[in-house]
């Protein structure tokens, strides 16, 4: 079975100079799409990936990453909506590049579809009541 998941990898500073993703791809036969990457000097590296491959390879790959000391989070946990601040205006809808916001035709409320989110962060400052929060 082929799986495809969006994950967030936190690299401790000691691992930043190692070819971890290269090994992950080569040895576990996984394919990847980089959604976001940043390295903060002396602190940590952050990589948001869409990782796909055979379930068994995927599981072994994740095991390898954990063993090396990389911290893994599922992407959907990273961009959250503070429900008490959202006014359901809709300013985010045309700003999001992956259409993760939709207006519900019946309730006219703005729905946030977590699975479509790639954590680019464009909605954070575009949201007038600042209801969108990034938690990396």
């Amino acid at each position: 079975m082929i799986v495809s998941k969006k994950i967030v990898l936190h690299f401790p500073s000691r691992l930043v100079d190692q070819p971890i993703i290269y090994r992950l791809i080569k040895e576990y036969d996984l394919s990847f799409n980089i959604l976001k990457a940043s390295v903060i000097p002396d602190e940590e590296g952050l990589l948001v990936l869409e990782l796909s491959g055979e379930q068994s390879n995927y599981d072994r790959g994740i095991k390898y990453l954990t063993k090396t000391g990389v911290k893994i989070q599922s992407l959907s946990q990273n961009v959250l909506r503070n429900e008490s601040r959202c006014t359901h205006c809709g300013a985010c809808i045309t700003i999001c590049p992956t259409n993760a916001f939709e207006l519900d035709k019946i309730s006219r409320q703005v729905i946030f579809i977590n699975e479509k989110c790639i954590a680019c962060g464009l909605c954070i400052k575009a949201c007038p009541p600042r209801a969108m929060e990034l938690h990396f």
Partner: protein
Amino acid sequence: MLRTIKEINEKIKLGKAVIATAEEIIDIVKKKGIPQAAKKVDIVTTGTFSPMCSSGAYFNIGHTKPRIKLGGGRVCINDVPAYTGLAASDIFIGANALPDDDPRNRLHPGEFNYGGGHVIEEIVAGKDVRLVANAYGTDCYPRKKLETWLNINDINQAVLFNPRNAYQNYNVAVNLSDKTLYTYMGILKPKLGNANFSTAGQMSPLFNDPYYKTIGIGTRLFLGGGIGYIAWWGTQHNPNVPRNDFGVPSRPAATLAFIGDLKQMNQKWLVGTSMIGYGVTLTVGIGIPIPILSDEILKFTSITDADITAPVVDYSKAYPQCNPDILAEVNYAQLKSGNISIEGKKIPTASLSSYAGAVSIANSLKQWLQDGKFLLSEPVAPIPQSGSDYHLKPLTERPIRLQ
């Protein structure tokens, strides 16, 4: 005339008034026709929940011992400057006010995370806010410095006073240029990348009473989750604009000024708001009841999104240069479908006004009326009407030359 406001109030007190929201009335009229619907329904409730810049609040904080004269001095609440040109212990804070050390647009686009609108939201929420004052000292008001926590429950008066809200129609903002614009109408992507609008359409108060036949000075209404009143017509009020067959203006037209006791309002309906690259403001919830005094008034309340058109304006040139040019007219049914077509291009649309919020406000107002908690008021004076000689003027500059 079908009924008077006095008669409607008697029915409200008995719990017998028939109330529909501006959305529900559309279907009622479709099923029953106007005369039957007008006979049945006493009141139509409207609503709008949108960023409304010309908003603010004034406070009387009570006298200190020894006394301090804030008037003519300097006051900040949570580092946001308040206006002190009133009297010894009266201050006013505007929704657009920014802390002195806010970087504004020095690094464009500025974030504008906190300002007057947020201070008002925190005060309404019952949070303690930090007041820092410097005064010059007089014989009768000797004190020169004051630093204290302040809470809405402890001060004498806290009054929301918004000089211009509830715009009757507004521009649809687009961007013809090749760079992203950061405006009070939101982020506008280059080359007609998106279109932003900002009214609740068929739910919006002034679309349901387009000639201000029932809405006037003294009208009691839902303001910020509590009860408020129309204080005056709003600044930039402009009733003499083109209107369609339904009497609805096809350009920004009337505005209203609102006043109400902040102490009975709710932070859910007064939300501090940040417009990236533009500034801070306040998102305000307003709902106005419309008494169905005649068939004609009911007909106005049955307006639908498809019957209301708005002008599409380019915010890269026409708006900043104050040119009257418009690119097209579109209706709110098209805007709410998610796309409009301009110059042959399909453009995704988004709203800055919360339709879900507008419906919720109209339903709250309906509930208050059903519970007999809210009575209608007779307006004490009309606001300037269409056909009057009331016009909106740009500023004619007269350069000041040294003698």
